[in-house]
């Protein structure tokens, strides 16, 4: 339980860091911290495969992609965010989001069943069990994931083709994936 609290505090602090960081690269580093603490949570919750997948996909692929784009777009620039817009929008949206979070957390704690004393089935959450699930009853999900990733790759190719729109000289645009 002590470990849970420490991890929860670390994870929450990293999350606040993502939102409060001034530059996107700091946000990206905080997000890596958040992702890694969540992976440890998955281990605590007997989800070994998901912990590995979380680290590989998020810290390994997604964050590298983010860092590439951050260095591509913001290298050597320091821009303050403009603050015009709807008056009070920031305060109101922050208040509403935090209210929603507190309500959700309250409901989660209120209807919690407490620590389970039932032992897990052997192999729960392990790679063989996940594999059997994904290639057996959950094969639809695997097929949908494959289709979705293929569609995303095609969409990125279409979005990043070099177009001569007459206003700017066509140039080869960097593919972020």
């Amino acid at each position, binding site marked *: 339980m002590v470990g849970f609290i420490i991890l*929860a505090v670390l994870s*929450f602090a990293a999350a606040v860091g*993502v*939102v409060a*960081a001034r530059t*996107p690269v700091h*946000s*990206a580093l905080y*997000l890596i911290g*958040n992702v890694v603490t*969540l992976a440890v*949570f*998955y281990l*605590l*919750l007997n989800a070994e495969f*998901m912990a590995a*997948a979380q680290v590989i*996909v998020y810290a390994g692929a*997604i964050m590298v*992609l*983010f860092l590439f784009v*951050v260095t591509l*777009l913001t290298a050597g620039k320091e*821009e303050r*965010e*403009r603050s*015009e*817009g709807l008056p009070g*929008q*920031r305060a109101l*949206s922050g208040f509403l989001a935090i209210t929603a*979070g507190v309500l*959700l*957390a*309250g409901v*989660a*704690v209120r209807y*919690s*069943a407490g620590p389970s*004393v*039932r032992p897990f*089935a052997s192999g*729960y*959450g392990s790679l063989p*069990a996940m594999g059997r*699930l994904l290639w057996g009853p*959950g094969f639809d*999900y695997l097929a949908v*994931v494959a289709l*979705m*990733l293929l569609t*995303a*790759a095609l*969409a*990125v190719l279409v*979005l*990043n083709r070099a177009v001569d729109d007459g206003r*700017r000289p066509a140039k080869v645009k960097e593919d*972020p*994936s």
Partner: protein
Amino acid sequence: MIRAVPAGDVVALAAALFAVGAVGVLVRKNPLIMFMSAEMMWNAAALAFIGYAAEWHQMQGQLMAFLIIATAAAEVGIGLALIVWVYHKKLRLDVDDVSEMKG
């Protein structure tokens, strides 16, 4: 192995992370930071699924978390491509610059 952490606390943490991510999406104007906050919201949803999967001893929840992680990966590819594309048009990173639907 016997679990020591009640699922309700895990889901409460997930709700807190979700709220922080929502604040980031609503308050920040840099599309990259907004996007990272949205990633955090996906992560919070995955954590809730895995917490309840441990509560009910059902691996279907982990299957859903797998789906969420894959969706997040696909979404990051498309989203970052869009951000790069808009940046090449506008040369600024600010969502308020993208206020019209003209091509």
